[in-house]
C-alpha cells in the first residue's frame, strides 16, 4: 500500500483496475467522465477501453464481456442510465459470469444535469445491488467490494457515487501493483438456456432474484461499510445518512455529544437487520439524504413491519429540504434543529456590495456563437423556432444570442422540432445538435423526420469533439480511446444515407456565406441539413487577437450587444479587446458596421 492524492473518479478507476478490470466502456457525462479517462490514461494495454456511441451501447458491450467471464465496468451519469435502462432491466434477469459494475454518477443540485433523479431507485426498480460511497477512500475500497459481490452473485451491480465524491480529491491509501488481482476470462460458453431471454427464463429468474436479494439484505446487514456508530452519551435520537451527507454529518457532530448514527452504504438491498438494530431504543431518527428519501422510506417501512414506535423524519416530513444538494451548513442546521441545539452561528458581516453575476457563456472564439448568429440573422422577421440539445451549445440560450427555445435530453431536439412543425406548419423549424450528440442519439431522429415527411432544418454544430465534458473523441473524430486512428464517420454521408437530400457544410466563421446558406437551405421543403463545421476554440491555437481601430470605432457597441463574446469588454468607457481571451476568430470584425475591428487573420 502507498499514499496518493487522487480525485474520486480516479480512485474509482484505480480501484477497478486493482480488482482485475478487463474492459471498461461508457459515454461521457459530468460528473462521471474521469473514471474512464483515468483508466485509459494509466492503461498498460491489458484493459480494453472505449467511449461507446451512447450508454446503451456501452452497457451492452460490458454485458457481452462479462458473459465471457471478463470483469467489466460501464460508466455514465445518471441520465445516461435512462438511455441504458432497456438492457439494464433485462440483464438483471440474465445475470453475468465475470464481475460487472455499472458506475452511475448522480448529481445532486443538479450542478450540471437535467434532473435530480436518484439511481438508488433504479437499483430497486431493476432489483440490482447498489453501492453508495461517501468519500474518495471509500470509493476506492468499495468499487473492489462491488466487483467481488457481482462475481459471487453472478449479477451486475450498480455503483453510485455523487458529484462531491466523484470530484473531491483526497490523499488515500492505494494498493501497489503487485497487490492487484488479475482475471483471465474463460471465454463465452454457449448455453441458450442461460443467455437467451424468454418468458419462462424470466419467470424463474424473477424467483431467484427475489430470494437472492432477501439473502443479500442479510449479508449487507453485516457488511463492514454499513456502520452503526454508537451515541457518545445516552440519547434516544439517531441520524441515518449516506454518501457525502455522512461526511457533512460527521463534520457537524465534531466535538459534540453525537447521537447514534447509521451510515447506509448499500441502499439496495436495504440492510434490514442492521436497521432494526440501529432503531432499537430510539424515539426519533433524522434521515439526512440527497436526492430522494430512500433511507427514510425504508426505515418508515421497517418501523411498520416490526411495530416500532420510532418516528422517522427527513424529506417527507420537511425536516430536510426536498431538492438541491446538502452542504456542511445545511446539515449542521438540520441537525441543530433535530437535537434542540443552538443554530450554528452565521458570519457577522456587513451586507456585501452587489456582486457581479458570472453565468457560464460560450467561450471567446467559440464557433457555435457564429452558427447561432448566422441562423438568427437569416431568420430575422420570420416565424421560427429553435430546438436545442445537450452540450456546450445549450449556452446559445443566453442573451444576447437567445437562440435556444427548447432543450430536453440527448437528441430530443430533432424530434421536438418535428412535433412543433406538425402543429404549426407555418413555422420554420430548426433543430441544433452537436456532433457527439448527433452520433449518440440524433440519427434515429433524422430517420424519423425523413420517413414521416417532416419539414425542418437540422443544424449540426460540428466542432469535431465532445467539448462540454472535456473533449472526448467520438465516431466523427477518427480516434478511439485505445489510441487507434480509424476512419472518420462522416455526418454528411450519414445524413445523405438516411435520405436527407439537401446537406450543406459551411464554416460558420465565414459569416456572409453562412447566413446565405441558412436562407437558401431553410427555404426548401422537407428535411434538410446544414453542417456548421469549425473546430472547438479551446483545441486550436488561436489567431492573433483582434485589434480595434480607435479612429473608426464609433462606440455603437454592436459587437458586444449582438455577440456577447467574453473577448470584447468595456475598458475606461470604450470598447476593447480582452487579449487574454480573444482567439482572433474574426466574427466581431464581420459584425462591425464601421470596419473598425481588424487584425484577425481569418476574417474575410
Amino acid at each position: 500500500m502507498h499514499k496518493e492524492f487522487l480525485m474520486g473518479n480516479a480512485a474509482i478507476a484505480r480501484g477497478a483496475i486493482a480488482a482485475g478490470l478487463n474492459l471498461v466502456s461508457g459515454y461521457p457525462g459530468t460528473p462521471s467522465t474521469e473514471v474512464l479517462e483515468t483508466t485509459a490514461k494509466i492503461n498498460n494495454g491489458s484493459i480494453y477501453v472505449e467511449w461507446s456511441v451512447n450508454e446503451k451501447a456501452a452497457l451492452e458491450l460490458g454485458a457481452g464481456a462479462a458473459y465471457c467471464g471478463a470483469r467489466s465496468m460501464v460508466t455514465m451519469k445518471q441520465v445516461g442510465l435512462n438511455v441504458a435502462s432497456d438492457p439494464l432491466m433485462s440483464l438483471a434477469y440474465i445475470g453475468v459470469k465475470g464481475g460487472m459494475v455499472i458506475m452511475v454518477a448522480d448529481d445532486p443540485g443538479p450542478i450540471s444535469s437535467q434532473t435530480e433523479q436518484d439511481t438508488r431507485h433504479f437499483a430497486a426498480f431493476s432489483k440490482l445491488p447498489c453501492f453508495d460511497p461517501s468519500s474518495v477512500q471509500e470509493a476506492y475500497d468499495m468499487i473492489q467490494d462491488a466487483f467481488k459481490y457481482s462475481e459471487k452473485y453472478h449479477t451486475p451491480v450498480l455503483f453510485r457515487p455523487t458529484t462531491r465524491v466523484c470530484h473531491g480529491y483526497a490523499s488515500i491509501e492505494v494498493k501497489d501493483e503487485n497487490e492487484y488481482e488479475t482475471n483471465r476470462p474463460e471465454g463465452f460458453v454457449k448455453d441458450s438456456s442461460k443467455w437467451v431471454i424468454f418468458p419462462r427464463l424470466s419467470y424463474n429468474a424473477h424467483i431467484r432474484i427475489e430470494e437472492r436479494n432477501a439473502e443479500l439484505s442479510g449479508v449487507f446487514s453485516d457488511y463492514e461499510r454499513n456502520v452503526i456508530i454508537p451515541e457518545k452519551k445516552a440519547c434516544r435520537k439517531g441520524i441515518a445518512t449516506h454518501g457525502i451527507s455522512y461526511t457533512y454529518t460527521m463534520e457537524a457532530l465534531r466535538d459534540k455529544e453525537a447521537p447514534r448514527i447509521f451510515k447506509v452504504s448499500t441502499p439496495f438491498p436495504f440492510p434490514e437487520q442492521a436497521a432494526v438494530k440501529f432503531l432499537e431504543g430510539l424515539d426519533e431518527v433524522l434521515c439526512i439524504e440527497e436526492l430522494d428519501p430512500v433511507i427514510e422510506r425504508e426505515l418508515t417501512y421497517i418501523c411498520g413491519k416490526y411495530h416500532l414506535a420510532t418516528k422517522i423524519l427527513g424529506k417527507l416530513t420537511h425536516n430536510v429540504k426536498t431538492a438541491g444538494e446538502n452542504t456542511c451548513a445545511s446539515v449542521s442546521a438540520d441537525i441543530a434543529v433535530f437535537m434542540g441545539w443552538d443554530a450554528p452561528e452565521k458570519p457577522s458581516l456587513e451586507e456585501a456590495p452587489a456582486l457581479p453575476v458570472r453565468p457560464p457563456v460560450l467561450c471567446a472564439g467559440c464557433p457555435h456563437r457564429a452558427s447561432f448568429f448566422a441562423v438568427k440573422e437569416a431568420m430575422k422577421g420570420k416565424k421560427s423556432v429553435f430546438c436545442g440539445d445537450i452540450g456546450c451549445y445549450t449556452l446559445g440560450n443566453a442573451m444576447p444570442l437567445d437562440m435556444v427555445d427548447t432543450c430536453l435530453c440527448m437528441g430530443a431536439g430533432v424530434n421536438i422540432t418535428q412535433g412543433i412543425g406538425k402543429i404549426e406548419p407555418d413555422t420554420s423549424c430548426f433543430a441544433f445538435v452537436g456532433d457527439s450528440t448527433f452520433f449518440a442519439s440524433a440519427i434515429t431522429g433524422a430517420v424519423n423526420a425523413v420517413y414521416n415527411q417532416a419539414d425542418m432544418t437540422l443544424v449540426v454544430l460540428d466542432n469535431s469533439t465532445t467539448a462540454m465534458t472535456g473533449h472526448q473523441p467520438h465516431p466523427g473524430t477518427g480516434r478511439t480511446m485505445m489510441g487507434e486512428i480509424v476512419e472518420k464517420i462522416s455526418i454528411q454521408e450519414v445524413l445523405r444515407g438516411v435520405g436527407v437530400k439537401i446537406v450543406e457544410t459551411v464554416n460558420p466563421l465565414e459569416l456572409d456565406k453562412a447566413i446565405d446558406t441558412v436562407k437558401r437551405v431553410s427555404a426548401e421543403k422537407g428535411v434538410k441539413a446544414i453542417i456548421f463545421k469549425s473546430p472547438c476554440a479551446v483545441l486550436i491555437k488561436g489567431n492573433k487577437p483582434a485589434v480595434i481601430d480607435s479612429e473608426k470605432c464609433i462606440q455603437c457597441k454592436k459587437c458586444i450587444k449582438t455577440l456577447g463574446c467574453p473577448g470584447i469588454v468595456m475598458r475606461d468607457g470604450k470598447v476593447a479587446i480582452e487579449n487574454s481571451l480573444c482567439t482572433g476568430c474574426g466574427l466581431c470584425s464581420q459584425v462591425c458596421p464601421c470596419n473598425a475591428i481588424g487584425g484577425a487573420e481569418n476574417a474575410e
Partner: protein
Amino acid sequence: MQSNILICGVGGQGIVLTSKLIAAAAMAHDIPVMSAETIGMAQKGGSVFSFLRLGDDLYCPMFPERSADLIIGFEPAEAVRMLPYLKDGGKVVVNTHPIMPVTATLSGSDYTGSEMLDYLKRNAGDVLLVDGDKACEELGSPKVLNMVMLGAAVRNDVIPFSVDDIEDIMKKTVKPQFHELNSKALRY
C-alpha cells in the same frame, strides 16, 4: 491541527493548479489533504473555487462558513463572495485586478473592484493586497498570476510551507520551460 484554505477566482486563472501544488506540498510532508473544486459548466468564465483542507481527522473536503484560515482571492469580487467562509482572525490574500463578467459588459455595469477591496478591508481583519496585474506585466506573462498569488501567501506565512517547498513541487508538476518564470513569480 487542521488548516482550511479557500482559493477562489474566475475560470481560467489557474486556481486548480494552485490548489494542486499546495496539496502536493502537503503530501510531500506526509500531511493528509483533501480538496474540492468547481468542475464542468461553471468553469466557462464562471466563479471558480477550491476548498483545501490539511490535517488529521478530515471527513470531507468542504468546510462550513466561518472556518477558513486563509482565503486566496484571485479576483476582488470573488473574494467578497467567499468571505463568509473566513473564520474570525483568518487571513485574506487578494489580487486587486477585477475581471468583468460578460453580463457587466452587456449591462454597462461600472464594477471596478475597489468597492470590493474596501469591503474586504472593513470586514476581514487581515487583508494582503497583491497587484497581480502589475506583477504579471513585469514578469511578462498573464499566466503566472497563480504563482504570484501563491508566492505572496507563502511568503507571508499563511501557508504552512516554505517557498522552496512549493518551488520543488512546482518543478515536479509544471513543464521545464516554465520553471524559471514560475520561480520568479513565486518570489515576486
